C-alpha cells in the first residue's frame, strides 16, 4: 500500500510539475523563466508534451477532415500514427536547430534544448488546433480567416501577433538553452529559414516552375547577357563614387572649418585669390565677359579634353570618363561653382565655429528638397545629364559627412585636446594627429550614410538622362513591365547593401587600433 501511495504522489507531482512549466511559459515568457525551466528538463516530459499535442491534432484531424493517407480501419491506429508523426516532425526540426546552434557556439544539451522547444510547440500548437476547431465548427475556411478583406479578417492581425509571440518565445528558449548571445540566436534561426529558402528556390528551378522568381532571374540573366545590366551598374557605381569622393573632400574641410575658432583676416589669406581668380577666369571667359581673346584657349582646352575623354570612355572606367567629359564640357558652370565654393570656404574660415549652426542648418534644408525637384532646379543652369546629377548628388552627400565631421571633432574630449595643445602641438598638428584620427569612426559613419543614400538617389538621376539602374525602374513603369522595374529595385537594394557592407569593413579598417577595444 505505501509503495502505491508513493507512486501516486510522484505521479501527481509529475503532472503538477508539467502543468507548472506550461503555465510558466504562457504567463511569464522571459529568459529567466526559460533558464529556470532548463533545470527541469527530462526526456519523458518532452515525449509527453508532444504526445499531448499529437493526440489533440489527431482528434481534430480525424473528426474534421481525415486525409486519405492515414485512414485505416482502426481509429486507435490512426491516432497512434498521428502522434508518431508529430513526435518525429518535432525531433527532426529540433535536431536541425540543435546542430546549427551547436555550430554557432551553442553549449546546451539536446534534452534541455528539446524540452524548451516542446514547451513552446505544445501549448501554442494546442491553441492553434483549438482555434481551427472553433473556426471549423463555425463553418469558416482557413482562406476566409486569413483574408484581411473579409469580415472576420481582423483575425489575421491576431494570427500575425501570435506568430510573432511564438518567434519571440523561440528566441528566448534558444538563448536560454544554449547560453548564446541574441545575435547568435538570430543567426541560428536565420540559417534554418535561409537554408529552407535556398532549397525551395533550387527546387523551383529544378522542377521548372513558372513563377515570379524564375521569370525574374531569367530576365536578369538575359539583361546580363546583353551587357545592359553591367552598363547600368557601372554607370550607377561611378556616379555615386565620384559624387561621394567630392563630397568627402568638401564636407570634411567644411566640417573641420566650423569647429575652429574664428580667424581674423590676414595677409596670408590673399592665397585664396589664386583659386578665386582661376575659377573666375574659367567662368567669365566662355561667357564673353572678358573679350573673345581669353575665351578661345579655354574653350579649346575644354573641347580637346572632352573629345579625348569621350573617345577613351570604354570598359570599367568608361562611365567615369564620360562623367569627367560631361564636366569639362561646361567650363562656365565649373568656374561658377568654383567661385562660389572658394567664397564659402573663405567665409567659413573667417567665421569658424560661429558659423556652425547656420551651416548645418542650411545643409539640413538642402537635404529636405526632394531629389527630383533638385534635379529639376539644376536643369536651368546645367541642363540635363551627368553634370547636373553630380552637382545634385554631391550636395546631398554633403550633409551627413559635414555633420559627422563636425560632431566627431566636437566629441573629442577637451582634456585630450588640451593635453596636445599644452605639449606644444600647433592647431594643424592637433587636427591631423589627434582630432581627425579620433573622429575617423564618426566621419566614416557619415560617409556610409551618404553612400547608401546616394545609391537610392542616383537611381532617380536616370530621370535627367543618366544611365543608372534607375533606367530599369523608369522604363519598367513607363512600359508597364513589372519584371523590368523589379530588376531595378532588386539591383539597387543589393547594390546599397553591399556598399554599406564594404564601407563598414572600410570603417573598421580606418578606425585607429586603440579606439576599437573601448565602448
Amino acid at each position, binding site marked *: 500500500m505505501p509503495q502505491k501511495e508513493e507512486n501516486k504522489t510522484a505521479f501527481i507531482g509529475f503532472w503538477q510539475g508539467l502543468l507548472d512549466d506550461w503555465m510558466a511559459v504562457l504567463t511569464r515568457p522571459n529568459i529567466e523563466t526559460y533558464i529556470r525551466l532548463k533545470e527541469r528538463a527530462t526526456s519523458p516530459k518532452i515525449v509527453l508534451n508532444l504526445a499531448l499535442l499529437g493526440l489533440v491534432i489527431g482528434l481534430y484531424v480525424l473528426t474534421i477532415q481525415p486525409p486519405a493517407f492515414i485512414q485505416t480501419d482502426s481509429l486507435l491506429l490512426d491516432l497512434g500514427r498521428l502522434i508518431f508523426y508529430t513526435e518525429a516532425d518535432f525531433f527532426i526540426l529540433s535536431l536541425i536547430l540543435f546542430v546549427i546552434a551547436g555550430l554557432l557556439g551553442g553549449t546546451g544539451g539536446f534534452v534541455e534544448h528539446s524540452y524548451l522547444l516542446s514547451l513552446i510547440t505544445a501549448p501554442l500548437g494546442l491553441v492553434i488546433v483549438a482555434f481551427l476547431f472553433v473556426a471549423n465548427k463555425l463553418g469558416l475556411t482557413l482562406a476566409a480567416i486569413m483574408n484581411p478583406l473579409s469580415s472576420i479578417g481582423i483575425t489575421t492581425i491576431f494570427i500575425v501577433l501570435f506568430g510573432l509571440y511564438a518567434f519571440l518565445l523561440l528566441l528566448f528558449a534558444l538563448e536560454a538553452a544554449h547560453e548564446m548571445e541574441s545575435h547568435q540566436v538570430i543567426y541560428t534561426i536565420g540559417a534554418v529559414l535561409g537554408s529552407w529558402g535556398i532549397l525551395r528556390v533550387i527546387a523551383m528551378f529544378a522542377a521548372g516552375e513558372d513563377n515570379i522568381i524564375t521569370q525574374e532571374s531569367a530576365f536578369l540573366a538575359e539583361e546580363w547577357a546583353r551587357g545592359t545590366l553591367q552598363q547600368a551598374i557601372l554607370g550607377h557605381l561611378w556616379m555615386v563614387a565620384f559624387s561621394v569622393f567630392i563630397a568627402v573632400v568638401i564636407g570634411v574641410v567644411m566640417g573641420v572649418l566650423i569647429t575652429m575658432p574664428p580667424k581674423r583676416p590676414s595677409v596670408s589669406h590673399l592665397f585664396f585669390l589664386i583659386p578665386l581668380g582661376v575659377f573666375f577666369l574659367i567662368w567669365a571667359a566662355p561667357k564673353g565677359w572678358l573679350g573673345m581673346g581669353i575665351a578661345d584657349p579655354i574653350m579649346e582646352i575644354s573641347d580637346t579634353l572632352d573629345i579625348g575623354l569621350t573617345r577613351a570612355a570604354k570598359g570599367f572606367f568608361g562611365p567615369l570618363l564620360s562623367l569627367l567629359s560631361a564636366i569639362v564640357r561646361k567650363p562656365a558652370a565649373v568656374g561658377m561653382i568654383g567661385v562660389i565654393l572658394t567664397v564659402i570656404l573663405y567665409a567659413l574660415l573667417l567665421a569658424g565655429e560661429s558659423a556652425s549652426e547656420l551651416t548645418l542648418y542650411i545643409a539640413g534644408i538642402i537635404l529636405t528638397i526632394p531629389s527630383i525637384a533638385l534635379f529639376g532646379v539644376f536643369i536651368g543652369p546645367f541642363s540635363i545629364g551627368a553634370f547636373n546629377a553630380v552637382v545634385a548628388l554631391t550636395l546631398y552627400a554633403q550633409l551627413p559627412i559635414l555633420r559627422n565631421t563636425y560632431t566627431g571633432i566636437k566629441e573629442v*574630449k577637451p*582634456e*585630450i*585636446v*588640451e*593635453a*596636445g*595643445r*599644452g*605639449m*606644444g*602641438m*600647433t592647431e594643424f*598638428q592637433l587636427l591631423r*594627429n*589627434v582630432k581627425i*584620427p*579620433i573622429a575617423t569612426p564618426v566621419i566614416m559613419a557619415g560617409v556610409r550614410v551618404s553612400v547608401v543614400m546616394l545609391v537610392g538617389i542616383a537611381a532617380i538621376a536616370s530621370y535627367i538622362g543618366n544611365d543608372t539602374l534607375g533606367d530599369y525602374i523608369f522604363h519598367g513603369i513607363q512600359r508597364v513591365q513589372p519584371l523590368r522595374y523589379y530588376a531595378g529595385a532588386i539591383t539597387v537594394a543589393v547594390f546599397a547593401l553591399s556598399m554599406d557592407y564594404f564601407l563598414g569593413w572600410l570603417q573598421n579598417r580606418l578606425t*585607429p*587600433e*586603440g*579606439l576599437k*577595444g*573601448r565602448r
Partner: protein
Amino acid sequence: MIKLEHVTKIYPGTTSPAVDDLSFTVPTGEICTIVGPSGCGKTTTMKMVNRLIEPTDGEIYVLNERGEMQNVLEMDPIILRRNIGYVIQQIGLFPHRTILQNMGTVPKLLEWDNTRIRSRAEELLDMMNMPHEFLDRYPHELSGGQRQRIGVARAMASDPPVMLMDEPFGAIDPINRNLLQNEFLRLQQEIKKTILFVTHDIDEAIKMGDKIAILNANGQLEQYDSPAKILSEPANEFIEDFVGADRTLKQLNLIRVEEVMDKKPFLLQSTQSVEEALQVMDEEGQDYAYVVDSDRRLQGYVSRKDLKEKSGWIDEYTTTAATSLPITMNLRDALSEMLMVDYSTICVVDNRDRVRGTVNTAMVQEALMETHSSGKREEV
C-alpha cells in the same frame, strides 16, 4: 626657476581680475604648490606660464636649459610649450595612440629619431617602475594609476627643466594617490625639476610643496612660504582658516621620528642574565626595558615584575613588542600609532629591524613646541 612679476589676468567681459598682481619665484629644482579655494585662479596662473592663457598684465620668466632667464611672453608659444612639461588631472592620453607614441609626443614634435624616442620611453618606464611591454599597449588597457604615471612620464619625455602639474593626482583613489605622491617625491629627488603644482587639497600642498602659494578667492596671493612656515606662522586669518584648525597636527607631517627620537635609548641584550638585568634596571630607575640581540635587532621587552625572583637568561622572559616605528615615518602617523598601544615608549627601527632609538609622546610634544615657537624648520 619660474618667476612671476605682477601677473594679472582679467577675462574679457569681466571686471574683477581672476588673478590679481601675482609675484613669486619658484627656485630651480623645487616644487611650488599653488592652493586656494575653487575659482581662485590657480589653474589660470599655471596656464599663463605656458601661455595656454595669455596674461593681461605682468611678466613671466622661465629659466631654460642653457641657464638663461627667458621672458615667456616674448617666445613663440608653441616652442615654449614643447619645453615645459604639462600634466593635467584628466591625464588626456591620446586613446588612439600606443603608450610609446603617447610618451613620444613631444620628442616627435622636436623631431627626435625613433630609436632615441624608444630608448627614452623605456628609460621613463624604468623610472616609473613599469615593465617595457606597456610600450605597445593602448591607454584603455591600463588602470587609472598606470595611466597617471604615463601622463607624468609623457610630460618628462623631452626632459624639460620646468613642469606644470594641474591636480595630477586628483582623480585617483586615496590609496593610490598616496602611493603616487610618494613615488613622485622620490623621483623628484633624482630629477630635480622646477615644478608648479596646482591642487585644491591643502594636505597635498603641504606634502608635495617645497613652497606653497596660497591664493584667496579674488586671485590675490595671501602667503608664499615653506609649508612649515605656513603652518607655524600663518600670515593672517584667511590662511589660518584655510590651513584649518588642525594646523598644529599638520605640522607633524613635516617632521620625521628620526628627528625627535632618543638616539641613545636604554636597551638590554638578550644574552644578559636576569640578575644583571635587574641590577641595570635598578640603576637606571626603569620598570621596563627593550631587549635586542647582538645585531641590535628588536626581540621584545621585559618588565621588572616579570624578572623578579627569576634566574637564567632574560630572553626566556621577553614579551614580543606590539609595535615599532620605521625611522622614516612622520610624526603624525607615529603619534597615531602611539595612541593605539598603551606603551609609554616605542622603539624606532630601521629597514633591517635594528633599533635606532625610542620615542614617546613627550618628545613629540616637545618637538611641536619648538617648531611653534621658532618656526625654524625649513626642511622636511
